[in-house]
Every structure is written in structure tokens, then in C-alpha cells.
């Protein structure tokens, strides 16, 4: 049996419905929420600010730190133990790396920008939603960056190539491959690429192309969220 029709009825190259909002946390330098289907991410940016302990400082360029965390009630199963774990640390690291190239870090040597990503509701693709939200939050914080970054998961369920897998597709009984990617908005560079599963070389390049197209749609949602509230009557 193959996977002929997606569980929620959308097309194979379609993302789930998206919703984004900038400036949700007043006390932060910048903040945003990003919702894609049932996956929700909150991103909060603090800084640039002074960095301690002092030995972490880099006198040539600024630093970015990401703190990814799933909230205790975010999963479909039991309580998720809060706090840093192996998975959260990995996602924090790859997210920080996804932004390093686009941020103008030389603007704030010796200082740090902290990004807090919280996932209140998870239905696969949380690191990608986190990246999409963090990108809006960084722009909202007025931090200089050459381009925006959007994240989406692509992959394979049974024999079909899909964009933006949800949890039922990621955990499909006939096997699935999950490839979270992040794409920059101007140069279409891939700043995050991970893969859990297997697929042929041909399938991979095809699915990546689909992912880049999907990220363009996410960019539009990010842009609309940032510009909301600044319309001049």
C-alpha cells in the first residue's frame, strides 16, 4: 500500500496553514510566534547584551546563543521533562548555526544575542517552526541580518515525497524520512540540513527543491507578520 492521499487532505507540496505574529513579548528586544498546522513556536530575542562569563566573549564579532525548549505539556504523550536535554541542546546548536551566516555579528563584538525558542504545542517540525519564528523575532529586535531564514521539514512517507510532514506522516508505519531544512530568503542557501531516515540521491535533490519553494511561502508569511501594524493609513 502506498501513501496516496495525505492524512489531512492537502497536496503533497503544500505546507499546513500558517500564522505568524511579531512582537508578542513586550519586555523582550524582539519576539514572534509562528504556527504551522498544530505546531506552534514562540521565539524571544534578548540583546545585543553584555556576555558573561567573560571568557566566552569574542572581541572580533558578536555571538548568538539559542535556547530551544519544548514545554512540558507540548507533546501528545505524557509530560515532557523541561530543561536542557541532549535533543534540545542539539537543536539549539543547529539553530544558532542556521543564523550565523545571515546575522551581521561584527556589529556587536564582545556582546551576545540570546534567542529563546519555546514550543507550546508540537506536531512535528518544531525546529523548523522555531527557526521561522526566530527569524521574525530577530528582525523585530532590529538586529541587522542580510536575509531572512525560513525552516520547513521535507521528506518521504512510504513512497511519496512530501513537504511539511506532520507527526502521523513522520511516524508512518511504512517508513518515513524526515529532513528539516532552513533556507535563506535572498540567496536560497540551505543553512540547516539534517536527515533522519534514508532516500535515494535523486529523491533528495527533488525534495530539497520542493523545500526551497515551500520556504518562499513561509517568507511571505514572515514578511506580512513583521509589516503588520506599520501600515500608514
Amino acid at each position, binding site marked *: 500500500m502506498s501513501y496516496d492521499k495525505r492524512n489531512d487532505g492537502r497536496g503533497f507540496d503544500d505546507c499546513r496553514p500558517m500564522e505568524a505574529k511579531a512582537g508578542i513579548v513586550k519586555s523582550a528586544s524582539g519576539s514572534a510566534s509562528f504556527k504551522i498546522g498544530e505546531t506552534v513556536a514562540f521565539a524571544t530575542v534578548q540583546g*545585543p547584551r553584555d556576555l558573561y562569563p567573560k571568557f566566552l566573549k569574542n572581541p572580533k564579532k558578536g555571538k548568538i546563543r539559542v535556547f530551544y525548549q519544548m514545554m512540558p505539556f507540548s507533546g501528545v504523550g505524557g509530560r515532557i521533562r523541561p530543561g536542557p536535554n541532549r535533543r534540545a541542546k542539539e537543536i539549539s546548536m543547529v539553530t544558532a548555526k542556521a543564523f550565523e551566516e545571515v546575522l551581521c555579528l561584527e556589529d*556587536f563584538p564582545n556582546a551576545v544575542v540570546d534567542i529563546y525558542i519555546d514550543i507550546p504545542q508540537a506536531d512535528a517540525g518544531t525546529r523548523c517552526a522555531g527557526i521561522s519564528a526566530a527569524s521574525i523575532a530577530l*528582525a523585530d529586535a*532590529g538586529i*541587522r541580518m*542580510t536575509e531572512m531564514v525560513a525552516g520547513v521539514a521535507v521528506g518521504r512517507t512510504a513512497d511519496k515525497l512530501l513537504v511539511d510532514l506532520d507527526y502521523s506522516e513522520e511516524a508512518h508505519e511504512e517508513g518515513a524520512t524526515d529532513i528539516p531544512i532552513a533556507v535563506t*530568503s*535572498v540567496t536560497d542557501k540551505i543553512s540547516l540540513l539534517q536527515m533522519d531516515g534514508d532516500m535515494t540521491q535523486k529523491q533528495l535533490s527533488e525534495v530539497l527543491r520542493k523545500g526551497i519553494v515551500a520556504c518562499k511561502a513561509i517568507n511571505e508569511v514572515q*514578511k506580512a507578520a513583521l509589516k503588520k501594524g506599520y501600515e*500608514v493609513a
Partner: protein
Amino acid sequence: MESKLLIKERDVVIPGEELASGMDFLPSEGTYRLENSIYSKVMGLVKVDGKVLKVRALRGGYLPKRNDTVIGKVTDIMSAGWFIDIFSPYNSLLPLKEGSSDFIQRGADLTRYYDIEDFVVVKILSVNAQKQVDVTIKGPGLRKLKGGRLIKINSQKVPRVIGKQGSMINLIKENTGTQVTVGQNGIVWIKGEDPLMENLAEKTIRKIEAEAHIPGLTDRIGEWLKDQVGGKK
């Protein structure tokens, strides 16, 4: 290739948004060139100055610049001078020589001049590549602050609060009869005989901060202030 401007003056743009194509335009503050096009680096308002494109940030923290007048707080006293927190990621030093025109004896009690937690209006003398900041208190308008109240505003909105040649700030001073000092770092000091007028000045500054991106600001604020003052009398 023909050059084309893709945006209008005062449009709100996000990082990575294309501003112009072709080689006839020049990138300036907040923009960069990539191949044939000019893109924004920051979320903000576009300024078209002939062929030069600029983007002024809408939000973002204060980064120290030479010759800026800022309001800071004395956080520590060392033998070399006073440490001043200028509400940016970087601390600043007010050296002994720049602190007073008196001759200060070695080992003298420096709290006689400025004590910890005093607020001072200082000018930035120099900022080096590692963002070490030196300030001075010698100069017109630079002083220790006594009484009054301090409020913090978005530092990117400071030019709007001051207005062209100080038109906006004079408007506030004349209508409310208060003394107002605005630091480039977004700290505003207000002092007046009448606490109600202090309230009004604060409210006005908050209003300017919220409406800074809408054209016709000075006229609108002028009328609003007249209404408010008229209502109080």
C-alpha cells in the same frame, strides 16, 4: 541593464527585501549590494536620497557612537575614574581627567563628585573596535542630574523625539514648562515644577514613540499638546 527602484520613500521593509535593481543606485546605512540589486539589512523605513538608499531601523538597542550625548548611571568607582552604565551592551568609563575640571588628588574620595547610582549626562569621546567606550562630562549641557524623573524609550525613536533642530523637544518644553534632556541611548530626563506637567511631558514622549512612523508628526503632536494643556487650565 535598466535600474529600477522597487520601493517608495518611507516604506517599511524587512531584512532581505529587494530595494532596487540595477547599478544606478548606491547602498548606504542599513542596506547592501548583492550582484545587481540592493537589499535591506534591517527592518525599518526606507530613505531615498537621490541615488543613495538608506534604511533606518524601527527598533533595536543602542550601540554607542562617538559624539553622542547619553544619560548614564554610575555603577562603579575605580582609581581611574567612574564606570557608567549607558544602557547599551557596553559599559563606559568616565576618566578622572574628564570627570571634573578640579585637580583631583591621588586617592581622593571620588564619591564627592559622582557617587554610585547617580545619573549623569555625558558625551561619548571615543569608541574603539572592541567597543570600549570613554565618556566626558566636560561640555555644554553635560552634568549630574538632580531630581526629576527618568523614562526609557526606544533608542531608534530618539531623533523623532528631538525633531528637526530640536523642534519637537522645544514644543514639549514650551507647552509643559518642564526641563527635558534626551539621551541618544533612549533615556529621557524630565523635571518640572508641576508633577502633572511632568506626567503630560512623559505621555507626549510615549505618544511620539508610538506614532513616529506616521507622517506629519510635529503638527499632530503640537495640536494634541495644545488640547491637553488647554484642558488642564
